[in-house]
């Protein structure tokens, strides 16, 4: 762009210039897509109506954490919200959050027919799925992990001796990170896999929520049906995401009564297997060409 100065001002020639700057690689494209998808899912640069539900859900997760920290500040001996209870309490909110953002991530692109545009760019089909997984995982982590970390920090900093308290509760932080990350990617992968099959957001939201509810009922029915065969019945938890998460959190924080009696490794293995299957389905689905 060139400018010609005169006593009256400047006239800019906005002629077309060829681009000779850097062209970045796949990682940049993946991050660009993930960032754009996250912003759109949270309603950024969109009408205010698109921001309401995500903000309400963030508020719903933050309020108990803030209340717990507040109570801790005034009554140090009283523990209002333990970590296992926190994860049990937020499962529903994280589930709704995933049901909300996963269709925004996947179904919107199908609905707006953006896939041919994306795939005519250097980003590959596999990279597209990776970007969406990254975006969903990061957003869900902000619901499942971030508030728990804030709770941990609050508990530590409000102790009589903050630094030793934080140091001694580092194992709790490790458990929080494991639980929060597992929940984020487990629920995120399930939500994305379902949403990738339809271009209609309302259908995807309905199927995801219905799937979570029905899986819970089915899991309980199987548990009842095999009550006289405890070795089989204990595996009924794997059908239900909520019971699988409860089992993982219970085993992780030493409160096995929270979920089923599957060992921690088995619960984590089931979640890893579900994440792998969902990713494989999405990769296969998006590799389909005409």
């Amino acid at each position, binding site marked *: 762009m060139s400018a010609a100065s005169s006593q009256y001002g400047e006239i800019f020639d*906005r002629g*077309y*210039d*060829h*681009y000779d*700057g*850097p*062209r*970045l*690689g796949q990682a*940049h*494209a993946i991050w*660009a*897509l993930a960032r*754009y998808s996250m912003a*759109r899912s949270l309603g950024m*640069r*969109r*009408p205010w109506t*698109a921001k309401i539900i995500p903000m309400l859900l963030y508020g719903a997760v933050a309020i108990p954490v803030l209340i717990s920290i507040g109570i801790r500040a005034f009554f140090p001996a009283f523990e209002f919200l333990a970590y296992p209870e926190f994860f049990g309490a937020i499962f529903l909110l994280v589930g709704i959050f995933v049901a909300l953002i996963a269709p925004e991530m996947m179904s*919107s692109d199908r609905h*707006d*027919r*953006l896939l*041919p*545009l*994306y*795939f*005519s*760019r*250097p*980003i*590959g089909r596999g990279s597209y799925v990776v970007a969406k997984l990254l975006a969903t995982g990061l957003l869900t982590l902000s619901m499942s992990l971030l508030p728990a970390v804030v709770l941990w920090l609050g508990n530590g900093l409000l102790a009589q001796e903050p630094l030793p308290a934080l140091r001694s509760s580092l194992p709790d932080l490790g458990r929080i990170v494991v639980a929060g990350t597992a929940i984020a990617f487990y629920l995120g992968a399930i939500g994305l896999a379902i949403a990738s099959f339809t271009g209609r957001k309302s259908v995807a939201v309905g199927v995801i929520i219905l799937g979570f509810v029905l899986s819970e009922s089915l899991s309980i029915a199987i548990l009842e049906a095999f009550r006289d065969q405890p070795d089989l019945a204990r595996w009924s938890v794997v059908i239900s995401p909520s019971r699988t998460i409860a089992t993982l959190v219970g085993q992780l924080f030493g409160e096995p009564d929270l979920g089923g009696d599957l060992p921690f490794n088995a619960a984590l293995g089931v979640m890893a297997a579900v994440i792998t299957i969902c990713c494989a389905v999405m990769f296969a689905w998006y590799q389909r*060409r*005409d």
Partner: protein
Amino acid sequence: MRSEPALPLSIETAGLVKRYGSVVALDRVDLAVPRAAIGLLGPNGAGKSTLLKILLGLSRPNGGSARVLGRDAVTDGRELRMRVGYMPETDTLPDNATAADFVSHMAEMSGLPHRAARQRAADVLYQVGLDEERYRLVKGFSTGMKQRVKLAQAIVHDPELVFLDEPTNGLDPLGREEMLDLIGRINRQLGILVVLSSHILDDVEQVCDYVVVLDGGQVVASQPLHVPDDDTADLHVRVDGDPGPFLKNLEGLGLIARPAGIEFTSDEFVIANDGERTLDAIRDAAAMTGSPLRLLRPAKRSLEDLYIDSVGAGANGARDKRRTSKR
């Protein structure tokens, strides 16, 4: 003629085959297209969109090879897609995004850093005439404005070649003229090669230097659109008044005249050119019958003629089609 056969090829295919079940969409397509503004022409279902998808690496061929700008469309797809742009036929814009956000995002998807992408998006939207509207949501745009956004995202990363699939779809006559003018500028002023897929002859004729005609999945013509005048080309003749005596006299001189085009009511006739002897005979026939000679010129094959000759029976009523295509 603007196309230079000696320049490197923009599109090269050899024995390209694409099947959808039992339907053969592309049947051994061989192309060697020079760097030019290329028109991809053919009736609906001729295989134009399928060819574009293969050239972009969006679809895999069942056989044969395809190269664009010297790169294999199947094996070098990623590298190729950094150098080409694509404007699809369908409505492919997110309603709840502003034009600036979306075009900038697509620039980043092509590898441009964030700041450069924002700047390029603003510049390109200005070039396509959406400077003032770039911060408005796309859902409030007219069809013509949406087409311009689609064009902007196709060229925002400064590609060497841009594929345009039916870019004038849904536009009113004024919008269509503006879009064609814009495409012409992209090619001539910005130096971006254009592949324009269309079923509208006028669109291709207005913008392109080279035409590829597909019919039934096969290439039926691939040639420059504007051929130089040829001394041996047939001659077009028109006389004032009743042409009967003139034509009879020509016949007596051994020349057969046939009506030009397929409209037998035309007062223009075509005569096979046999050199100087033919010109002398026409002059003599006109003089002997007293018929004022109003037109005598070498026949130029229009795109319409080429299309009719190439597509043949499939183009029945091509002139009617052209008329209805003129919006």
